[in-house]
């Protein structure tokens, strides 16, 4: 398929890997963070790690929207799902995310009507088809997903649907990046910027990283050649002493983002003063809630959601993995008490999570290395 096949060309990939070898400073150790969970997945799936010199290390960032949801928000969702008459909808990954008293899948087994949807528009269709039920959509995701939720809510409002609400957990990418950059235990040389978030928000929101923190940022696509080229562009910036935001993903990302999507998000959402991130704590203005104009469609208001705060499990080191301080296999419970089948932490639940991606693709290669 056009825009896909040409970015999976093995010969070109090896050529870019050779250029990386020529561009890297052999006397330095470079740590580059891929912000997005989709990038983490691609890196493991295509073995990008194996094509890089030993002194270029990829660090996995906080860009998995499932991984950063705290247990208290899952408990809130389960609480709403059990209310009489509620038809609760969510994306597939959220079903297995553990709260303090089980998962949404457990709630479904216990009798709650919990259904997977592919799009919030599917949840809206369920609301139209079930006028006697209260249909709730559990919204998660960064700025890539928020436009589809915003579009759905604007349609619900225009249609005057009274049995549809949204439990909003949308988060924004810039505040956690700023928090990471301010973290004293973090040492990073550059960032692979999230290509699909940037499709919506554009390149400008990432400029503070280059201007204020003197770190190169390269916004990248998700195919193997995209990621290799992004690493090469970062190494070239470092070699030349430059720090700018560059766009490797020009076939998709316009500098100004998607203006229509940003407009509808601005109408439907407003920033929350604070939001708790799993492993990262409370971060100011890092999440979205429904604006006053959409208060009638806000599940938190309609169901008077308790908003319970629950501490992360003590054994879980998701926070350190999310900050890139430790690798997944360095976590005390990785692959033993915490596996994709029986996950303790969210990084193992979501296929986008660094732990699950590493468990599924990377651990065998490491086992070979150790032997």
């Amino acid at each position, binding site marked *: 398929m056009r825009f896909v096949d040409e970015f999976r060309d093995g010969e070109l990939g090896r050529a870019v890997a050779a250029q990386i070898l020529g561009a890297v400073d052999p006397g330095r150790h470079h740590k580059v963070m891929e912000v997005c969970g989709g990038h983490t997945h691609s890196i493991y799936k295509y073995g990008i790690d194996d094509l890089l010199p030993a002194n270029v290390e990829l660090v996995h960032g906080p860009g998995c929207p499932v991984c950063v949801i705290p247990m208290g928000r899952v408990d809130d969702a389960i609480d709403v799902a059990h209310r009489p008459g509620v038809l609760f909808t969510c994306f597939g990954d959220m079903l297995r995310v553990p709260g303090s008293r089980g998962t949404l899948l457990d709630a479904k087994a216990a009798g709650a009507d919990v259904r997977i949807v592919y799009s919030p528009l599917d949840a809206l269709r369920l609301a139209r088809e079930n006028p006697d039920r209260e249909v709730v959509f559990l919204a998660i995701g960064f700025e*890539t997903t928020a436009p589809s939720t915003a*579009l759905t809510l604007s349609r619900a409002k225009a249609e005057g649907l009274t049995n549809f609400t949204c439990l909003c957990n949308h988060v924004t990418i810039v505040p956690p990046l700023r928090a990471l950059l301010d973290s004293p235990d973090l040492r990073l040389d550059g960032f692979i910027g999230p290509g699909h978030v940037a499709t919506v928000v554009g390149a400008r929101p990432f400029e503070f990283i280059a201007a204020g923190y003197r770190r190169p940022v390269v916004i990248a696509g998700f195919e193997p050649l995209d990621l290799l080229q992004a690493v090469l562009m970062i190494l070239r910036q470092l070699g030349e002493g430059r720090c700018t935001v560059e766009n490797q993903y020009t076939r*998709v990302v316009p500098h100004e983002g998607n203006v229509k999507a940003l407009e509808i998000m601005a109408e439907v959402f407003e920033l929350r003063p604070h939001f708790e991130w799993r492993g990262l704590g409370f971060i100011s203005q890092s999440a979205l809630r429904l604006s006053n104009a959409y208060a009638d469609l806000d599940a938190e208001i309609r169901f008077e959601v308790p908003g319970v705060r629950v501490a992360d499990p003590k054994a879980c080191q998701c926070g350190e993995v999310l900050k890139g301080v430790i690798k997944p296999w360095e976590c005390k419970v990785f692959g033993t008490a915490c596996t994709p089948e029986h996950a303790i932490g969210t990084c193992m639940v979501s296929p986008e999570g660094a732990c699950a991606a590493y468990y599924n693709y990377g651990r065998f290669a490491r086992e070979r290395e150790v032997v």
Partner: protein
Amino acid sequence: MTAVPTPSTCAEGHCITCSDEGIEMEVVATAGHVAHCLDPDGAAAEVDVALVDAVAPGDTVLVHAGVAIAKLEAIA
């Protein structure tokens, strides 16, 4: 919005709906704000194109959670 693959069968163990990753799809036909598209595996999907400029058959769009968030530009 009906889409293939079905929500419960994430391709290759990778749930692009839940992640912040879109998928390139080719537009086959349009009807109002809905475009009938094919994903890279040839599976059919209905996509809402209200948030991108007008699309026509043959265009490629980036789709996330049933909504097109970008129209791809030809590579120079």
